[in-house]
């Protein structure tokens, strides 16, 4: 097969979403330095996108886009003032006569009527303020808000009311709880992108990330809609958890019932309480609703599958594959903090929940290049409920690890404490003081402002881990 044929094959697979990482690397290498192939690839890509656009084209789609866009326009005070100022000259019956002079000439009753009419006209001119949809009831970490008019608010406060817009927890330890007017709550955690709207009914667009929702009974015919890249969920009143990524959506229903439509083929399933379903882009797999499996109390990382954040380091020779911490900007623009993070998903791609049990321990293997403090964290969920908070424990690594000696440590579950102690004091049932009895959602570790060269090669959770070997203390030899 010559290089053009190979390019055609790889490029077709790429456009069909069937090219894996090694294929992308091969494609990259093939087109590098060959401007003709790059042009062919770009022509083909643009044609592919235009064909997709034509296929989607319909009057209803266009109307939907236009009405959504117009609904996002801000009601801005400047527009309000401009509108009033523009209208006032037309409202005055005599050119060149000020309202004050005019009123002085009129009998009081006529003047009063005119004032009422003027106020009414001003009120009717004012663009409708964007309705507040949710209030932030709890918040942690770096969470960004993009609201009406595309205004970006990098730092939010608890108690703030929000109209429609997009909420983005920016790091593994970020989360926010939002409460709707009817008491329904939605918690979005970890690196996620959630757009909120409420025009005819509550609508959430979870483009990526994790969401837990406790939804109050909704009016007939107006279920809460949750859209993800691969599914549409209709929720009447229930407690559920959703994990969304580009290629699949995992829905787990704790109470109530949720109707799921898989976007790839339009197949529909009803998910009752205690059941779950995965809606992927692969239409060959059955949209199968299964009973939530009994949880297990052990977990072993599979780095290529579980990686949420971190730089992939392929193993060579005796060294195993690893994930090295990658920088992540955190904090406010005034006080930026750089975190060096590795984050792993425990729940993604695993239908069986992992329960954190008393006495369990984490064993972490890897490497660290320099001394420093490392924070290890867990994101948890209630077994029959939503987000249950994050737990952390910190460890200081001394110079002993500034060699090639591998890192091999053990962390007892009992050592983890709530990231937000105040929250636990306020809502001990919602955010327990201990992770025992909760489900493990994701695992992460980080250093703050200093890159300690931390690399993780394996993480295990088990109640019966063999104690790692402690290197002999040279002073006692």
């Amino acid at each position, binding site marked *: 097969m010559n290089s053009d044929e190979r390019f055609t094959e790889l490029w077709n697979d790429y456009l069909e979403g069937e090219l894996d990482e090694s294929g992308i690397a091969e494609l990259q290498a093939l087109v590098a330095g060959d401007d003709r192939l790059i042009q062919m690839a770009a022509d083909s890509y643009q044609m592919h996108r235009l064909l997709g656009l034509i296929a989607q084209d319909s009057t209803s789609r266009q109307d939907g886009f236009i009405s959504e866009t117009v609904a996002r326009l801000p009601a801005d005070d400047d527009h309000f003032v401009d509108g009033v100022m523009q209208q006032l000259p037309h409202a005055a019956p005599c050119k060149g006569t000020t309202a004050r002079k005019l009123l002085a000439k009129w009998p009081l009753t006529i003047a009063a009527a005119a004032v009422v009419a003027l106020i009414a006209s001003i009120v009717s001119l004012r663009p409708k303020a964007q309705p507040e949809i949710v209030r932030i009831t709890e918040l942690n970490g770096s969470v960004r808000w993009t609201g009406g008019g595309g205004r970006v608010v990098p730092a939010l406060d608890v108690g703030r009311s929000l109209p429609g817009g997009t909420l983005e927890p920016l790091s593994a330890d970020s989360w926010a709880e939002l409460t709707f007017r009817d008491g329904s709550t939605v918690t979005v955690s970890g690196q996620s992108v959630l757009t909120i709207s409420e025009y005819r009914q509550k609508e959430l667009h979870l483009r990526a990330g994790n969401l837990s929702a406790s939804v109050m009974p909704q009016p007939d015919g107006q279920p809460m809609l949750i859209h993800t890249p691969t599914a549409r969920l209709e929720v009447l009143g229930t407690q559920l958890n959703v994990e969304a990524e580009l290629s699949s959506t995992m829905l787990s229903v704790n109470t109530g019932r949720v109707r799921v439509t898989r976007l790839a083929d339009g197949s529909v399933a009803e998910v009752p309480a205690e059941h779950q379903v995965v809606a992927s882009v692969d239409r060959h797999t059955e949209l199968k609703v299964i009973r939530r499996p009994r949880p297990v109390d052990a977990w072993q990382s599979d780095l290529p599958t579980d990686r949420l954040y971190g*730089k992939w380091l392929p193993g060579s020779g005796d060294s195993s594959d690893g994930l090295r911490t990658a920088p992540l900007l955190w904090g406010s623009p005034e006080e930026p903090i750089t975190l060096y993070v590795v984050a792993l998903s425990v729940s993604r791609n695993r239908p069986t929940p992992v329960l954190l049990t008393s006495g369990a321990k984490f064993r972490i293997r890897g490497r660290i290049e320099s001394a420093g403090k490392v924070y290890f964290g867990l994101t948890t969920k209630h077994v029959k409920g939503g987000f249950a908070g994050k737990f952390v424990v910190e460890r200081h690594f001394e110079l002993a690890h500034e060699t090639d000696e591998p890192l091999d440590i053990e962390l007892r579950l009992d050592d983890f404490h709530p990231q937000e102690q105040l929250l636990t004091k306020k809502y001990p049932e919602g955010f327990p003081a201990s992770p025992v009895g909760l489900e493990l959602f994701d695992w992460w570790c980080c250093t703050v402002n200093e890159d300690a060269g931390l690399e993780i090669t394996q993480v295990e959770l088990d109640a019966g881990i063999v104690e790692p070997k402690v290197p002999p203390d040279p002073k006692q030899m």
Partner: protein
Amino acid sequence: MMTRKVSSNDSPLDDAIRSVRNGNTAAFEVVVRQFERPLRAWLATHAPPGVDVDEVAQRSFVAAFTRLSDYEPGTNFAAWLFTIARFHLKTEVSRLRRVADYHVRYAPDLLHRELERRSSEPPEIQQARLDHLQICLGQLGEHLHRFIRWRYVEEIPLDEMAARSGRSVAAVKKQLWQLRRKLHECVQARMAAEGEPS
């Protein structure tokens, strides 16, 4: 020559812009309706994989609305709007680049750069391509058009397409590649014939 909707020297548009500037938010719908298609066509063909084109288009319209006082009446509104869209696309691409794995999973870097280079082309070109493409599609025989319909309208999997057409999956892939090339050549030829830049 075809009339392009991107043209901004058009009275209803000017009236709508004036009305919006006077506080009539609802009049902005006229602007959105006029530019929705060309803007989405431009974004779809210049955005690398992973970018939510509709989201960027909506953000661009909202930004144009909030900054409408910066727009100088009588100048080219389309050019002004596409400058805003270009900025928003760049911002979104920068955001995606920071996402772990983005390059590995979605975007051959060289394609990315070529699309970026092409984004400086006049925006009306994509609208013209779209119009010509519809004509070129109409000229395809049914035995070829069905592949386009299966892939882009019905979005059926390749193996289903293979079963329906009695060919192998590899042959179907090759057929799609050839069709895209053929349509590209048809569009380019039509644009050249009409003296439009391609």
